[in-house]
């Protein structure tokens, strides 16, 4: 199969969906010159009625997308930074996400939010390195975080076709990653986790940019005689409880490997689900390995210290197995 980059996979998905459905329009800052690369060539192919450079008015253009969606369009809104979700927060979680329910199920709000999730890329510091998916899923918003080019393309296409708001987080750290992507049309459904590597002794539930790290760690652990299973939820809401619980039931041990803040973070949710549903199968305490609850600091040694790393994962895995 041909290999393309994660960023190209996103681009392809967007282009294909714009060709497929003339209701798909794109809004965001600097999307016409394509500052971030995903929207490259769209202005040329689809013209100015389908792609809009917005003023620096995130709440405004987020709300505008909601109204356009209620009136039949399928807007894709690109944010330049993860933190811009904070600026538009009310329009996201209190309007776009709630309106359909509050209206008693009238209408649909098919908007896709494309967010460059932090990797964190080195040196972006406190206000450009957040991973705010726990905040959005807490408020009931559908969200995905693909970890491979193939998943990125398939999930973005699904998100655009979904008749509800969906946030697609694209980790900066993965944008240059190459991987196999089918040439033929495909989509990947929401709500399906994928076992990225099977194993028996330990489940590592890894999210987004940490999936490749978890796979490398599993490789290393295999050499040490530890068989780790790596599960990628891919879809954060809806979450595929079954695949995750099946893994934990099989291995009896779990590390939640997630690059969002710890308190009330995504790993907390996974831990709660497992503690409720697979408690009988657990042979060791659940372990969370997350970001520290500080803004990401700028200086490289500080930055590395607060982010979850493969090294710490290896340590945790060994410690967990040693306890047997």
């Amino acid at each position: 199969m041909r290999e393309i980059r994660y960023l190209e996979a996103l681009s392809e998905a967007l282009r294909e969906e714009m060709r497929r459905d003339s209701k798909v329009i794109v809004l965001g800052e600097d999307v016409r010159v394509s500052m971030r690369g995903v929207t490259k060539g769209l202005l040329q192919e689809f013209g100015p009625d389908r792609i809009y450079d917005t003023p620096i008015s995130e709440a405004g253009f987020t709300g505008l997308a909601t109204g356009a969606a209620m009136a039949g369009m399928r807007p894709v809104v690109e944010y330049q930074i993860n933190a811009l979700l904070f600026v538009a927060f009310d329009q996201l979680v209190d309007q776009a996400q709630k309106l359909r329910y509050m209206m008693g199920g009238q209408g649909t709000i098919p908007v896709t939010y494309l967010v460059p999730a932090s990797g964190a890329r080195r040196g972006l510091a406190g206000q450009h390195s957040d991973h705010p998916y726990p905040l959005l899923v807490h408020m009931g918003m559908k969200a995905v975080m693909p970890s491979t080019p193939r998943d990125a393309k398939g999930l973005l296409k699904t998100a655009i076709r979904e008749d509800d708001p969906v946030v697609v987080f694209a980790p900066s750290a993965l944008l240059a990653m190459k991987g196999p992507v089918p040439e033929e049309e495909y989509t990947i459904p929401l709500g399906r986790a994928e076992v990225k590597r099977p194993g028996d002794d330990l489940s590592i539930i890894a999210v987004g940019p940490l999936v490749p790290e978890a796979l490398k760690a599993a490789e290393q652990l295999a050499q040490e005689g530890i068989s780790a299973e790596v599960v990628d939820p891919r879809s954060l809401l809806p979450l595929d409880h079954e695949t995750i619980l099946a893994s934990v039931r099989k291995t009896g041990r779990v590390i939640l490997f997630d690059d969002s803040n710890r308190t009330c973070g995504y790993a907390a949710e996974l831990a709660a689900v497992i503690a409720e549903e697979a408690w009988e199968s657990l042979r060791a305490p659940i372990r969370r390995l997350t970001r520290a609850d500080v803004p990401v600091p700028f200086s490289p040694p500080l930055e590395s210290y607060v982010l979850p790393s493969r090294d710490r994962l290896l340590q945790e895995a060994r410690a967990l197995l040693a306890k047997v």
Partner: protein
Amino acid sequence: MALDKTQLIGLYRTMRLIRRFEERVVELVNRDEIPGVTHEYVGQEAVATGVCAALRPDDVITSTHRGHGHILAKGGDPRRMMAELMGKASGYNRGRGGSMHIADLSLGIYGANGIVGAGAPIACGAALAGKLARSDRVAVSFFGDGGMNQGVVHEALNLAAIWRLPVVFVCENNGYAISAPISEMAVVERLADRAAAYGMPGTSVDGMDVLAVHAAACEAVERARTGAGPTLLECRTYRFVGHFTAEKARGIKYRSDEEIARWRERDPVVTYPAWLRQQGVDPAMVDAEVEALLDEAVAFARQSAFPEAEEALDGMYAVTYPGLPARGW
């Protein structure tokens, strides 16, 4: 646009309907037949009435916490509104929304909104969609003098201006955001003057004069419909009653009795029919009609059933998945 007799009477009918609807709502809230709080439109009837009379059924509005008047004026069914206010399954939102969220997308009513200013960009989006669909649909966004100071309203005004969207921004300046007088919350005397900051026309009209409102709205809607872009229309009005039904219980006072009395003299539901009679048009039969309609609405709402509790988890998503939305237990 010269109005014929039927239209002139129609304006009165709408204003009277709003007034009496609100008066009944207050009674029902006080009798605890309507849960929660409601924000009455009493005193401001000429605004929604004059503006919505300038609209077509396929035009869109976004409303506010004080939405009953806008919704009635845009053609909302009093029966389904009343049922919604009582939390009944036959209500517009199947009981999910209540006063602050009533919506009827089929009439272009994109919802009341509990967050001040939040509807402004939503109206812009509806307008953009209309433009892209090559329709000449117009979107109207209502908000108050208080809403004028929300960041997102500023952003919406600018977005509409730069993209020449067919939007009419109707600022209902009733002088207060709850207790805060607009004279202390903005330095400019005419809020319509803020339009200049976006390079769009701004007009200020007497919001107690339904014909003046209507004329100004027709002009703004015409501009929008013909692709000439958005307008900011300030309607100077007043609410005769408290900010919401709960205000009395709080025992707060921020307006003098004289001020209220002065504005009440200009009550459009009184002065307009008086003027009509001077013109030889007698709108007397309207009152009984309205009362019958409201009797029926209240009866309909009362007779309707509450939704089944389990339905509470339905309809949040257009596309659902196992376990979504999560139950709490």
